[in-house]
């Protein structure tokens, strides 16, 4: 029998029985059904698995389960609204939507910050942490924060612009996303 560890996940209490050194990423994806966090490299280099541990971005592939006892974990599902949030709600209880992150997701889509999408959950979570600390981040602050979350599609420029649009430092330039209800109403 495996020991049980308790922590707060996306605002709700969570309890997981598992080996102490189980990777938090595997616990989230396999045991808790939260598949928003992706495995890229599994070595802490790519940032696709980034979650917030006590409000700090960390690679969930490098966090052993036993060290999250008593911690507060936020995943991309905890920041999501709409379909992704609803899916996560069914599996991990009701989630409080985070308005800032949700707006970030919309701007990200409109500005072309997300292309293939593999890095996007980790990128959004990382930028959430950036904006919590620096509400109007400089280009250098954005660059440094996302340097641990690799994106091979955008060349980062559109990600930087998305953050700058969101924080009112640049006018929106992106094409409205055709699939977005919000945009089609305008």
């Amino acid at each position, binding site marked *: *029998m*495996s*020991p049980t560890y308790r922590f707060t996940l996306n605002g709700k209490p969570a309890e997981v029985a598992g*080996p*102490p*050194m189980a*990777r938090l990423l595997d616990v989230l994806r396999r045991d808790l059904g939260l598949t928003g966090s992706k495995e890229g490299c*599994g*070595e*802490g*280099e790519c*940032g696709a698995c*980034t979650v917030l*541990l006590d409000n*700090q*971005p*960390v*690679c969930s*592939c*490098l*966090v*052993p389960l*036993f*060290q999250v*006892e008593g911690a507060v974990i936020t995943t991309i599902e905890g920041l999501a609204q709409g379909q992704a949030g609803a899916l996560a709600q069914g599996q991990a209880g009701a989630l409080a939507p985070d308005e800032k992150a949700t707006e970030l997701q919309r701007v990200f889509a409109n500005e072309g910050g997300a292309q293939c999408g593999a890095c996007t959950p980790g990128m959004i979570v*990382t930028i959430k*942490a950036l904006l919590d600390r620096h509400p109007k981040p400089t280009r250098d602050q954005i660059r*440094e*924060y996302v*340097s*641990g*979350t690799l994106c091979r599609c955008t060349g980062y420029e559109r990600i930087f612009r998305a953050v700058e649009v969101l924080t009112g430092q640049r006018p929106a330039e992106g094409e409205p996303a055709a699939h977005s209800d919000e945009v089609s109403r305008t």
Partner: protein
Amino acid sequence: MSLSWSPKTLAEAREALAQGATKVAGATDLMVTDHASGREHASVLNVLGISELQGIRVEGEQLSIGAASTFTLIRQSPEMATHAPLLVHAAATIGAAQIQNRATIGGNIANASPAGDSLPALLALGAMIAISGPRERRIVPYNAFHTGYRTTVLGPDELIERVFIPLPSPAVQIFRKVGTRAAQAISKVVVGFASDRLEHHRLANVRLAMGSIAAVPVRLHDVEILIEDHPLTADLADRAASLVEKTIWPIDDVRSTAEYRRHVAGQVVRRLLLDLLAAPLA
């Protein structure tokens, strides 16, 4: 079933240490090697919550850094910025935010990678390591901590409690790292340099330390003596670079060739001295 311990004090940690539990700090290296090798641990000890391993503060004649301090905390500490900017600079080059939020100074030391970025900084600053064992605490100069490739004086029932930097710390502190990318890259060559600055372009108490060029981080004593014995000139910078190339015996590995490392190590030292030459006297 494997056992896990998350003690709040050193006293509580001793039972786990006596039973040979694997010490786990930020786990940023351990999790990678465990996952790749399939290695399992009979029991694990979380050192991150141990109170004696926390905090960064000035205590009399030394800067005292808790072993569980993450590189993020080291970057944010005003005491670190004042007394050990070399280590702050090193901390900023370790991985990226996700790694710096987890990886600790104690973990970097105990992990004993030849490429550990904080390690040449610690050598250059003359760090001392406080090690807690079953009965006593001992203080080991950091330059005597490593015994060989990834081996150290740390016993299985001991853990690193704190790192001490003697004060006043050196007036000149310079960190240089050569890697493939500013973020995330593991060093090809990493340099920590510290000295006092005398008048007329003379340096005293020079400590020049390098990582990624030998099985352990090392000080280049011959080069230090050369720099101390001569006024700082462009010619001295060239001679120091040549001596560095003759002194070190790096290896070929996945990250670089020995030839590249030797050349770059010399040039890093040359440019560092030229930068000092160009900087106004303190």
